[in-house]
């Protein structure tokens, strides 16, 4: 009888150890591989940058859901005509900004703006150098973005169409390089003005500014928050409007859709007051897409 009990106990111990052995089999490689498998699955459903869809497609998403959100979408539809979705891979803010900005240049052919952003990019390069970044770690990403800027301006051999811009935005060998370019620019700006950003960062995580940049800005797939948006907008001198769509409501039950304009600190204050940002992003908790005004 006792022997039998011991057998059972041994057997249990065996299953226990084999279970822990099983767990040990999951090496970091496996986890990373599984991670890429999940990303591949996502890729089939949503390209990096989607097609332009009417705002009503947003409504369809919530048809069973929250009435406050539905009412807010109604309010949104008075001002906005369309939405362009981006993949929820942690790079959605940068990817939305990339497409939104390059499309804006393609449509407006604003040579002054291109001149202006190029000067700022040159500054960003100097910032990274002075922070001690080895040039070869970022130069390819900078060069590739400058190439995209030139190609959306029409009239040269390398000029591209709207369709080609969309193709490039879906091609990882271009799209990911541009996202990484923005991550470098953002990180450089935060570290350059670390005194300004420190209180924001301490409010989010309990880490140093440098650690925050290393772990939450520079790695691909790390999500962006207002800290990253402020930094990118300031560094490039590009205003960004973010429209917030969530379940919050006002006390008096009136339905308002809030937005916030991120206006670069360095920009001319007169300009920033009078002009609306050309880039509008829709924020839903955890995700950014592109919005098109009417």
């Amino acid at each position, binding site marked *: 009888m006792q022997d039998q009990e011991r057998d059972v106990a041994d057997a249990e111990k065996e299953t226990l150890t084999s279970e822990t052995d099983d767990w040990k089999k999951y090496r970091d490689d496996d986890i990373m591989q599984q991670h890429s498998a999940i990303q591949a699955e996502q890729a089939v459903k949503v390209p990096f940058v989607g097609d332009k869809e009417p705002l009503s497609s947003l409504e369809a998403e919530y048809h069973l859901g929250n009435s406050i959100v539905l009412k807010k979408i109604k309010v949104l539809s008075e001002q906005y005509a369309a939405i362009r979705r981006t993949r929820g891979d942690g790079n959605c803010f940068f990817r939305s900004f990339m497409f939104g900005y390059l499309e804006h240049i393609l449509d407006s052919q604003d040579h002054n703006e291109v001149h202006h952003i190029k000067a700022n990019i040159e500054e960003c390069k100097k910032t990274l150098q002075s922070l001690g970044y080895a040039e070869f770690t970022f130069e*390819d990403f900078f060069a590739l973005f400058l190439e995209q800027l030139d190609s959306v301006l029409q009239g040269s051999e390398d000029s591209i169409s709207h369709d080609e811009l969309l193709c490039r935005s879906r091609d990882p060998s271009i799209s990911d390089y541009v996202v990484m370019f923005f991550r470098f620019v953002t990180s450089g700006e935060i570290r350059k003005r670390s005194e300004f950003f420190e209180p924001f960062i301490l409010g989010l995580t309990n880490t140093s500014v440098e650690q925050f940049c290393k772990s939450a800005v520079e790695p691909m797939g790390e999500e962006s928050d207002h800290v990253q948006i402020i930094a990118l907008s300031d560094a490039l001198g590009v205003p960004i409007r973010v429209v917030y769509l969530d379940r919050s409501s006002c006390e008096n039950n009136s339905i308002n859709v809030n937005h916030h304009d991120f206006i670069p600190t360095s920009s001319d204050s007169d300009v920033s007051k009078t002009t609306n940002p050309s880039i509008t992003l829709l924020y839903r908790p955890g995700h950014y897409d592109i919005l098109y005004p009417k």
Partner: protein
Amino acid sequence: MNSGNNSNTPATAAPVMPSPKQTQTTAKTVDTQSVLKRLQSELMALMMSGDSGISAFPEEDNIFCWKGTITGSKDTVFEGTEYKLSLSFPADYPFKPPKVKFETGCFHPNVDVYGNICLDILQDKWSSAYDVRTILISIQSLLGEPNISSPLNTQAAALWCNQEEYRKMVEKLYKPSV
């Protein structure tokens, strides 16, 4: 970088929906030339830097596989020991980190018996801002400042609090490679 892109993309292309298969072979679409150029720059930078206690060099005929060396820092239990490492770079480097392993056995809380290293910057916290030099410096400082809370080698983690005994263990197990 986009020269190959114009030729195979008709202007009226339908939206390109990458299939999972394509995503897995992403590496191939990345320009190999730019990876080679980057690795060559890294080698130059490493040779020029003159950092003490770290070095690395590509294997013969293959710039995607490097052998590295780090020495234990002064005033740590690893002082006076030297470790060989292998670094193998994926085709989509620097978007993905190189695989780095200890070739010399290393009794350390974050290194397992096969030489695998548990270090966040070689996994989910990797970014293109790192390079061979900063990887080796990070591993060198990991030696003296292990992460005891998530050990790969639990015996080493348990012994860490007794530095005198730990040093004896390092000396006992150290087998320098020739």
